[in-house]
């Protein structure tokens, strides 16, 4: 089916999740992800699944924990303050090696912040969603089509690597409408022999747990998990490259800000500035290969974000001092304009020209 339908980003996330075989959705109201939950409320029952509005985000993530431990595809969604509350449960899921999909339609923070789009949960998503040594796979869509495709893929990744996967969207992507091609519903889902489903004496006991009181055992689980993370880093890094081959300046931007960066890049090209764009699709694992390669060819890197400068730290780690890494961002729910972004590119271009100064 290649028919296009017009959908809001939040609705596309919901529909794609159902098509990916998610039958358990646990939510709690929060702007700007409201439409996702409302869509789930309408559709999930008809799809033979359960939509439950929990009493809090903490309850919701623990319901995901339970449904996932029982072997089902489960999801929860929220926006920034609610994700903070889910952090504890996400850490437990990571510790118990449970799949699950968490959607963050980000808004400005910290604290109650505002309800306008933001990317200020980058650190939270890639570094410290909860306590302990762990990572999530983090996917960053930039169009409604990608909202659809990435959530569909997220469930497979979660099951394959037995870990929670986060979709890091934002209020702008959640609220806007674009035509999408929806994926065919999945008919076959992976077996989960580890799930706690009751064994009727036919197989050994399955245990889903994150508690290890013996330090050696706990260290072993951490080491195993980090070996898995290394495999993920090798296999799953994704980034989109746009006009980078001959670029002197490479802009790095993800999600909504990559759309603005792309228009700024186009305008700069019209002015004869050799500039390209790398759009990280996986924020974890961070596409260090693509950015490292760009750093070998380009003369400067500019990171554009809707925050005070978070991903720029990962970019600097990937670039490792080879070329200067500049940052341009707007925070608090303000979306950077293409004009401002172009100006940031032009400043770098000017400094490159005057490099001999």
């Amino acid at each position, binding site marked *: 089916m290649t028919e296009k339908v017009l959908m809001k980003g939040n609705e596309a996330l919901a529909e794609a999740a159902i098509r990916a075989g998610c039958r358990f959705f646990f939510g709690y*109201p929060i*702007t700007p992800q409201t439409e996702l939950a409302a869509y789930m*409320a309408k559709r999930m029952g008809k799809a033979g699944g359960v939509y439950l509005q929990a009493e809090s985000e903490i309850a919701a993530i623990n319901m995901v924990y339970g449904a996932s431990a029982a072997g089902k595809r489960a999801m929860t969604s929220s926006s920034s303050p609610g994700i903070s509350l889910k952090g504890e449960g996400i850490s437990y899921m990571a510790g118990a090696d449970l799949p699950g999909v968490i959607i963050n339609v980000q808004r400005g923070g910290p604290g109650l912040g505002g309800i306008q789009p933001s990317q200020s949960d980058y650190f939270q998503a890639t570094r410290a969603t909860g306590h302990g040594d762990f990572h999530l796979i983090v996917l960053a869509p930039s169009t409604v089509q990608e909202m659809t495709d990435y959530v569909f893929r997220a469930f497979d990744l979660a099951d394959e690597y037995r870990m929670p996967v986060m979709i890091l969207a934002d209020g702008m992507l959640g609220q806007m409408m674009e035509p999408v091609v929806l994926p065919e519903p999945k008919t076959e889902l992976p077996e989960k022999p580890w799930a706690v489903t009751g064994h009727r004496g036919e197989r050994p006991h399955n245990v889903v747990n994150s508690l290890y009181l013996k330090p050696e055992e706990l260290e072993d689980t951490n080491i195993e998990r980090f070996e898995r993370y290394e495999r993920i880093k090798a296999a799953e890094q994704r980034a989109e490259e746009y006009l980078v081959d001959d670029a002197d300046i490479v802009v790095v931007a993800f999600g909504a800000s990559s759309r603005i960066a792309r228009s700024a890049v186009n305008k700069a090209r019209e002015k004869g500035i050799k500039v390209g764009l790398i759009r990280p699709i996986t924020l974890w694992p961070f596409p260090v290969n693509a950015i490292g390669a760009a750093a070998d060819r380009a003369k400067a890197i500019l990171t554009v974000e809707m925050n005070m400068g978070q991903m720029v730290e990962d970019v600097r780690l990937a670039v490792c001092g080879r070329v200067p890494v500049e940052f341009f961002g707007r925070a608090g729910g303000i979306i950077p304009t293409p004009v401002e972004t172009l100006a940031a590119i032009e400043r770098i271009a000017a400094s490159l020209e005057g490099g001999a100064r």
Partner: protein
Amino acid sequence: MPKVADIQRALEPTWCPGCGNYNMQKALLEVLEESGMDFEDYAMVWGIGCHGNGADFYRAQGFHGLHGRALPLATGIALTNPDLKVIVNMGDGDGYGIGGNHFIHSVRRNIDMVAIYHNNQIYGLTTGQASPTSDQFMQTPSTPGGVVEEPVNPVGVAVAQGATFVARGFAGDVEHLKSLYRQALDHHGFSLVDVYQPCVTWNKVNTFKWFRDRVYKLEELDGYDPTNRTMAFEKSMSTFHELTCAPDECKIPIGVFYREAESFTYQDGLPQLDRPMWKHAEAPRDISKILEAY
């Protein structure tokens, strides 16, 4: 002493026209004026929701807390200064849902404060999802097939949990609400005032008229004894009603369900709180002995 006009901020409230929050604010402002309290004598705390926007509409020592966490925040404030009256405003989603556990524990702690719930039986600010007090079978954007769960019975929970002052008001009766606020402020201990606050935008079932047709006052009920916990609990059970019930089938009591004249608060259990913490810091210190050494 501050008058209504002093306590009310010049900011025009952003609540929808006709919202029950207007009357709740009117009642509270008038009671604050009457109480003769100065600005320094009380602090106000708000949760997150339409009710919480009230934080902008009062001139008060105020705190706008996290969604659901107004009671622990207020507890922190109350413990720093036992002389302070702490007035907490919460929503039903805010205070009975995500903050439900804090409700139970604040009741059993009997922290000396007034807890006012703006109970509109809906999530107002997030555009009309079912709340923990929505009637069973009610249709909302989050429950297209109707609410499955039984609603929380705040009055019953509080009475059963040993609350020392439990009242329910209706935003459509300002004079009655004022009398509840007055008594709650006078009470020594945790005072619950659950107020039916019609949300004219999202709750098309529990409207002003719906309540007007059904509420009656406990104080006008022959033989009702608000010092009898069992009686209070029995009355609290009439919180539950059929969504479609006719006015004479589901009568809803408002008024003081239960009160204890003598109540032992958490603060009473902490003799070190005989005066505000900051006054401890101000206690004159004699440093002459230390100086002698030099």
